[in-house]
């Protein structure tokens, strides 16, 4: 079954100063699937993820070339409108970073900056997306409390709800469970599987088991180079590259 590609990367090169971090990467990320980017630390996973929403722009001494096509628009084009691109993608970081405001305002932040002022509509949005991130029942009584009173796992789900509230098509996760306890991690993973019918999900992970559990599609990077990509079943059970075989067996890290 061939799926439409949601993100297509063509000849992407990223340099930080004199360091060549991503080397001529070309890949495609299928629509409405969970794609895992795996590889040992320092291989460029996070950089690749951050080039999808151009957060990479703010890094020091960065040079980017190539094309990243999202819905047939090259987002690396100098004329592309950055806020519009970022709006299409929700982002989860390694540690949850709730905004310095109430639980309610955290979720309403995105919709508000994009022009929704009506209180009733905001109420409805906040409830809908907190439910989608399976947090609503835990916080419905204390929406006006600071987001910092929540546990780390709850904060990460809040960040998910906050990202979903701007109605993105893609969810990017940069090792989104690495700061969480096993139970919270499991809830996030479970939420991802529920969400994949509506969203394209891309997660960076260094946990192979997580990639096995979640991913439909796998991208393996090593030292800035794309080694192998493909459907998860093939990737894990029938890897084509010797290096992939070794990585799966845990021989290189």
């Amino acid at each position, binding site marked *: 079954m061939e799926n439409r590609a949601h993100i297509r990367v063509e000849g992407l090169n990223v340099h930080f100063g004199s360091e060549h971090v991503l080397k001529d990467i070309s890949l495609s990320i299928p629509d409405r699937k969970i794609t895992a980017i795996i590889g040992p630390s320092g291989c460029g996973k996070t950089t690749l993820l951050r080039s999808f*929403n151009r*957060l990479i722009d*703010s890094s*020091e*001494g960065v040079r980017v070339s190539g094309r990243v096509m999202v819905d047939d628009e090259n987002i690396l084009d100098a004329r592309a409108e950055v*806020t*519009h691109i*970022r*709006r299409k*993608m*929700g*982002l989860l*970081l390694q*540690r949850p*970073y*709730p*905004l*310095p*405001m*109430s639980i309610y305002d955290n979720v309403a*932040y*995105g919709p508000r*900056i*994009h022009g929704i002022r009506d209180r009733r509509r905001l109420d409805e949005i906040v409830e809908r997306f907190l439910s989608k991130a399976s947090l609503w029942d835990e916080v419905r009584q204390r929406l006006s409390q*600071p*987001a*910092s009173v929540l546990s780390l796992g709850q904060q990460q789900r809040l*960040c998910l709800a*906050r*990202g979903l509230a*701007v109605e993105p098509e893609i969810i*990017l996760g940069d090792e989104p469970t690495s700061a969480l306890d096993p139970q919270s991690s499991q809830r996030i993973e479970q939420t991802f599987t529920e969400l994949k019918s509506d969203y394209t999900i891309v997660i960076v992970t260094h946990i192979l088991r997580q990639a096995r559990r979640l991913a439909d599609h796998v991208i393996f990077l090593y030292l800035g180079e794309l080694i192998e990509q493909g459907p998860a079943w093939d990737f894990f059970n029938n890897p084509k590259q010797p290096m992939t075989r070794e990585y799966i067996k845990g021989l290189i890290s």
Partner: protein
Amino acid sequence: MDRRKVEEGIFRVLMVLATGLILSSLVMILLTVLVKGLPYLSLEMVTQTPRGGYYLGKGGGILNAIIGSLYLAGGATLLAILFSLPVALYLNVYSRPDARFVSVCRLAFDVLNGVPSIVFGAFGFTLMIYFGLRASLLGGIIAIALLILPMLIRAMDEVIRLVPRELMDASYALGATRWETALRVVTRQALPGILTAVLIAFGRGIGDAAAVIFTAGFTDAVPTSLLRPAATLPLAIFFQLGVPVPEVQGRAYASALILTLLILIISVAARRLSRRLTRHVVK
């Protein structure tokens, strides 16, 4: 025997000494002001303006200087916030962190921070002459604002620099512009530090005599217009201390006590306020 234990002991003693020295000088200053000023402090001092012959020991108070100082330091602080917050946000949110311009700016503000306040007074005075302005509340506000601007910028800059990069990324990732991120996220997160910076700046502004001596002038009346001269507490203290009458010198200490209390009250009030404003800050 144990050399490292001896070292530890010596440094502990040095630190205790240093702390003691600073604390005791603070206590002595406060005690001097209290002991010498309290007997002369009266309701009259804080509710009336100087009457004829006040500086020779006759009746009246220094309401003119209290109100003048509050107007002056308050106005200058507001003016300085208006300029320093955008500068601090620019340095941290808008500019690239590796830009040379940023480090040149920081250096320049540090140098300006070390310039004596009389120089700011003289500079303010030159500006006023150029614009045809006389010694006035407005002139004083501008001079004090110039004086506290560099320290306010650098203090805000330091606290805004501590805002985690990821927090800004989280806002950008939702499609926020730099302006929205700076105003709604960065400023909110840094608010406790910003408030402390503002308080210190206010304290420095209200306590400075040299910058206002030419620019704000002095008057026995409560200022009613930005273009009229305004009295200030530091100058009131200075004038009263210079009079060889024990009664008037005592009132100088009472004035110093009033200035100290004023700063104390404002600090406590601002802390109270900041606790309510900053409950959302993410730790």
